[in-house]
């Protein structure tokens, strides 16, 4: 009975396969990270090569990473967390979940992008992503997207799912007050729709279903441009916000020393070059970037810290663009 034999072989190889996968290295460092998967992978590989410490990565959107962290509260798994929203680090700091650590390699990171407990891994900025073949005039300001040429052709990420997108709304409100809400009203009247997280807003613009994204994270699009897509990142003349990506060590870590080594590595010359290669601005000012730096972009006033304000903005925006 050759079939029975093949079933047996299949069963045995399946068991070997699964048990090989079960061996979860207890010594491995666990990193939860939002943002580019290729970057987290190359950082893990470089770190492993240098120190011999294995790294397990969980990579998803900021909301999912934070949710997993919260869900595992009873039995924490993560050692290092890299989020795409500065706000999440402040929140964890308030809860007392963070292990203070200042890396020697952070010396060249500007003051506004580090605290005693967390430090930026890299920085992204928000802008308009515009399809150059869309037949629409190139937008120069946020208001340009309310023009008739952009009727039903603008999309925006859901700020509830994209922390960076929420930063932009708050930045606009802080600098322009109710005028910002007039802008959102006009965008709504012009047919702007809200999509899922960042990429779900950008993809229709790549194919030309939409002409522009209001407030997209720039590095994803720089990467798309490098792949040959005909889109452009525009930082409006009236100002935008940057989104530093905080990196932190959790107090519950069983591998605090390795975690510190990992933070050192990400902030090292080699680590920061990887960050630059992923089209982000490096956190260190002495590492070359292949894209505009935050010093070259007109910025809106930084957001204030009250979290009630964040949820209020989110609620108001959701009511405007939701179901």
């Amino acid at each position: 009975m050759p079939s029975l034999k093949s079933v047996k072989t299949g069963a045995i190889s399946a068991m070997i396969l699964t048990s090989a996968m079960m061996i979860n290295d207890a010594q491995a460092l666990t990193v939860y990270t939002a943002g580019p998967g290729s970057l987290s992978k190359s950082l893990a590989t470089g770190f492993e090569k240098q120190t011999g410490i294995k790294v397990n990565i969980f990579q998803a959107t900021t909301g999912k990473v934070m949710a997993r962290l919260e869900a595992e509260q009873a039995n924490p798994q993560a050692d290092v967390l890299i989020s795409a929203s500065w706000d999440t680090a402040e929140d964890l700091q308030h809860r007392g979940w963070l292990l203070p650590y200042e890396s020697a390699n952070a010396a060249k990171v500007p003051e506004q992008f580090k605290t005693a407990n967390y430090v930026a891994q890299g920085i992204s900025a928000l802008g308009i992503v515009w399809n150059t073949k869309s037949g629409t005039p190139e937008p120069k300001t946020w208001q340009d997207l309310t023009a008739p040429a952009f009727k039903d052709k603008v999309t925006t990420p859901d700020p509830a799912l994209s922390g960076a997108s929420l930063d932009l709304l708050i930045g606009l409100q802080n600098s322009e007050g109710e005028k910002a809400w007039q802008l959102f009203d006009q965008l709504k009247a012009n047919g702007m729709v809200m999509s899922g997280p960042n990429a779900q807003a950008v993809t229709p613009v790549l194919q030309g279903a939409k002409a522009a994204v209001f407030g997209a994270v720039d590095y994803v699009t720089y990467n798309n441009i490098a792949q040959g897509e005909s889109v452009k990142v525009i930082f409006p003349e009236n100002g935008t916000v940057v989104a530093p990506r905080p990196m932190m060590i959790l107090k519950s870590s069983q591998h605090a020393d390795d975690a510190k080594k990992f933070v050192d590595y990400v902030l090292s010359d080699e680590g920061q070059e990887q960050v630059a290669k992923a089209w982000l601005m490096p956190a260190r000012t002495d590492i070359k970037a292949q894209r505009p730096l935050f010093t070259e972009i007109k910025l809106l006033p930084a957001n204030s810290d009250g979290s009630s304000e964040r949820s209020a903005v989110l609620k108001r925006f959701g009511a405007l663009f939701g179901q």
Partner: protein
Amino acid sequence: MMSRALNGLILLALTLLVALPLLFIVLQALFSQPGEGNWSGAFSALPALFEDPQLVPMWLGTLKIGGGVALCSLLLGLPLGALRGLFRLPGAAMWDLLFLIPFLTPPYIVALSWTLALQRNGYFEQLIGINFDSLLFSSTGMTLVMTLNIFPVVYFAVSRSLMASGQRLAWVARVHGASAWRAFAQITLPLTLPALAGGVLLAFTLAIEEYGVPAALGTQAHLTLMTVGIEIKLADWPIDLPGAASLSLMLSLVALTAWFLQRKLTGSSDVTAVNGKPVVQELAEGGRWLPLMLLPFILTVLLAVVLPLGAMTLSGLLNTLSGGLHVNNLTLRHFGALFSQQGDALAAFSTSIGLALGAALLTGLLGFLIAWRVSEGKTRLLAMMDGLALLPAAMPGVVVGVGLILLWNRGFWPVSPYNTMFILLLSYSCLLLPWPVRYVSSALRQLAPTLEPAARVHGASRLQALRLIVLPLVAPSLLAAMMMVFAVASRELVTSLLLAPAGTQTVAIFIWRQFEQGSVGQGMAMATVTLLASLTLMLGATMLMQRQGNK
């Protein structure tokens, strides 16, 4: 003695796989903090849930989509199934196989493929100048996309039931002067009704459980369905465990109701239609109507298989999306990148295949044992076993995921499968256990009850009789069910997203992450390769089985 030990073992497995996760959902839904051993505040989470302004639209949306999919599946599946079951069609086996493909394709990939094909400036507009933007991003669009994925359950239910009951009674009516149409309407159709109702209710259950299509099309259609709502509560910050558990419970109750209805309706069909004697398949000749009969098959295959899978493959072959449909915009680089991406794609592939194989073997073994034990008697214990084993059919994937997290992600377990591959194996096995149990049970019901005792009389041990008589006879059904388990497990998305440990990816997660990061081409290339690989594996297995059968 042996059967008692076996019962114990089966019950233990069912408790771990099905009962405990469900129990923890109930506990979490009733008490807000059972994890901390805090039993106060029963039902405290409910007011907040009912105050949620999203709740009613979410419910209505889910029921509307579920009902719409059931209705459209009926409209599409009934005529096709009737034609297949009543007439001798050329390429009958091929149509069956083609209609299996939408069922085996990841639904969210299909939804995204439709998006790329139909939206403004999508492939259709680039080719023929029209777009279906407003149709696609609406509840109608969502219903249609899901129907094209789900209608095969109605098609298979109707065609198989017609083929099993045969046409003898209808011919009797014809002989006595009834018109062909009257014979169909008054004899054939009523005989098929139980199977038809079962198929439609199954379509409804599958539709309200579906996560991929609502997740891909929902935001633009301004429609959040229950499964997406649960996933957001559970997997987006800040998380809401009691809310997710209560919603899960509600969704399960609806699915359970539909499922009980279906069981009531289909339970009687076996008695009336199949009498155990070999039925000669008396398929009518289509004659000159044949081309007209084949037309709906061709159109359906075009809509349900060729177009979405074509759009999927095409998206994987386009160098850039903004480049549009041009010969010089075609490239194999996305496919090539799968093999160079620091081994991620290959690792995801082997993880998924390994897990799917593991789930197929585990559910195959357990399902066979349960079906065999249940077929032997009618005690309350065995009935409970049967119920527990079939219960996951009414549990949406997202609910099983919630249950497993609530159960295993606790400090008090000395060892826990959470954060290892075992948790994925558990979730796939729980979700897919009903397939082998169902398939093997119906195969066992057709066996003459004398076979096993005859072997025992001739000196075979119980185990020998089982291994040499029963197992070979039900093996085709068992293998078919295991292949189904393999196919679904190798592409399962929502529990994988919720439960995969850090550092591991399955195929579905890999594709999902590619989309999340804006690499549509890469995601679609991976989807294409995976579909081709699983189809090849399944075809190979089918051919191997057929060759074995011919010897």
